[in-house]
């Protein structure tokens, strides 16, 4: 019980106190502790990679035994990819090995790009749902989004471009669509984002204090 509950709590408390002190103290004996802890963290992360790979292999083998039909192919492809990539990675040259490099360039990168490109279609479908003017708030959202999108394309610049050319009044230039877009993004949008960030920062503080003082222990398996 001590190893499972108390010891992790003691380590958490001491580590967090040292890190807080090292944030406020520039003294050469205290300040470097942050980077030392960071190094330790990286070493632990490197070891957990073995645990991760073991989990992946174990789950994939279980799936191969359990699944039938085409479903068996997915864990088989996962395991084969893992073994082949690791094999070439351990050969001479490591990450610069031609075999590894070839697979990364011509298999990994296109697959990543394919998944990422899905985002464009999903943004279109999500926008379609979000911008339906079903209520007053949704209508405001639709109008705001329309102005922002218009301000980011050349036609927005062209529509109200005359406001800049025919008058020297700086007041009228505020209604130039790209300027309205900038105002929406820098004032309204930024204010909302900062409110979320301040709240989140407080949440981080609250969670940290709870974990430091051992009030929150569910991640250690406590109640």
């Amino acid at each position, binding site marked *: 019980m001590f190893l499972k509950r108390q010891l992790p709590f003691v380590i958490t408390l001491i580590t967090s106190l040292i890190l*807080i002190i090292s*944030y*406020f*103290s*520039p*003294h*050469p004996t*205290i300040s470097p502790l942050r980077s030392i802890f960071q190094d330790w*963290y990286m070493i*632990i*992360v490197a070891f*957990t990679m*073995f*645990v*991760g*790979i073991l*989990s*992946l292999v*174990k*789950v994939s083998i*279980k799936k191969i035994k359990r699944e039938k039909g085409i*479903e068996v192919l*997915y864990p088989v492809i996962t395991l084969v990819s893992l073994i082949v990539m690791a094999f070439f990675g351990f050969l001479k040259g490591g990450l610069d090995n031609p075999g590894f490099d070839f697979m990364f360039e011509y298999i*990994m990168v296109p*697959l*990543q790009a394919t*998944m*990422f490109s*899905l*985002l464009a279609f*999903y943004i279109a479908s*999500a*926008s379609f*749902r*979000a911008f339906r003017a079903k209520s007053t708030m949704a209508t405001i959202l639709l109008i705001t989004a329309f102005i922002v999108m218009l301000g980011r394309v050349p036609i927005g610049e062209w529509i109200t471009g005359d406001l800049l050319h025919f008058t020297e009044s700086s007041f009228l230039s505020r209604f130039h669509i790209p300027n309205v877009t900038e105002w929406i993004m820098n004032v309204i949008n930024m204010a*909302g984002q900062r409110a*979320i*960030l*301040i*709240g*989140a920062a*407080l*949440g*981080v*503080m*609250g*969670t*940290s*204090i*709870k*974990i430091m*003082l051992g*009030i*929150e222990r*569910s*991640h*250690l*398996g*406590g*109640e």
Partner: protein
Amino acid sequence: MRKAVGVLLFLLLGTVLIYSSSDVSSLKVRDVPYDGGGKLVVSWNITAEEEVGNIKIFQKINGEDWKLYKSTNKLVDKMKDNSVNHKNSYKYKIEVYDKEGNLLFTKESKTITPGVAFYNVGKTAVLVSLLIIGGLIYYFISAARRGQKLKIRRIPALDSLDEAVGRATEMGKPVLFVPGILDVKNPQTIAGVLVLSEVAYKTANFGTDLNVPVSKPIVLSTANDTVKEAYMRAGRPDQFNDDMVHYVTNDQFGYVSHIDGYMVREKPAAVFMLGAFYAESLILAETGHSIGAIQVAGTAMPSQIPFFITTCDYVLIGEELYAASAYLSRKPDILGALKGQDYAKLLIMIAIIVGAIMTIIFPEFHFAEIFTDIG
């Protein structure tokens, strides 16, 4: 009398001549305060009758030989020497040359040893804020422990937890929990794992399958222990298996493709996405939406929140993610922390309003810099 006036005039003229012929150049070295003894600021101001061509700056460490540190042609400038060590003493010298390369004059600084500070005064605003907010949280935790009733606001996304898991149970479908793509160093991941504990407790009670794919191996150990303990807490350790929480890949889009594939094939009835998300948020949430799953999401990433709001049934916005574990567990001391957090937010709101008014009325006092100039 004439003699006296003559002597006086001679002295006056002599003084003027002496000052006009000599340089009024200066070389100053000062220690950067409140640092670890690794910085000195060297500044010079050169005034010479002849046109200056080149200026050489030399450094002497612990009384050893002069070493050329830098060459410049700027007559007035300063530089920060970040190569110094608090264990050594330093002296600087400038040699000023004319266009032909003839030495005009030299100037030496005093010897200086960089000072070492234990506390960075520039971070006082952070320390004071930390103490006030920490104090508020501690006060409300103590109040909760004394038995004081604390009322906190309703968070619909968290009230929906039972609904989501219950729906999955009724449909006989699994529950999918995605704890984000960052590791446990990120507080959002920790907050997500804390909610996972409650979700796992409910799936254990309802006898529903739970699937937690993770993208960082270090999250695997944490999430696995959390789920295991939740099943034990629910009195259903027999239902727990190690495959519930499993590692997929560190690669962002590899992880997304795995979850998307799982969602399309297995069609989980409830999808929880709580943690740190980037571009994958919309891909995951849209796929979840397309299979008709009840979706609860939460993140403190401001750029991803709109995507979740558009596609998910319930969303924990920013701080609500961190409040989730307290809200769900209903334990008094954790609720106390949440209450303290709310009061801290009230203080910040007051500080912003007062600061804005003061900055408008007294712009010359630069009130905002108290909070922005952090050393």
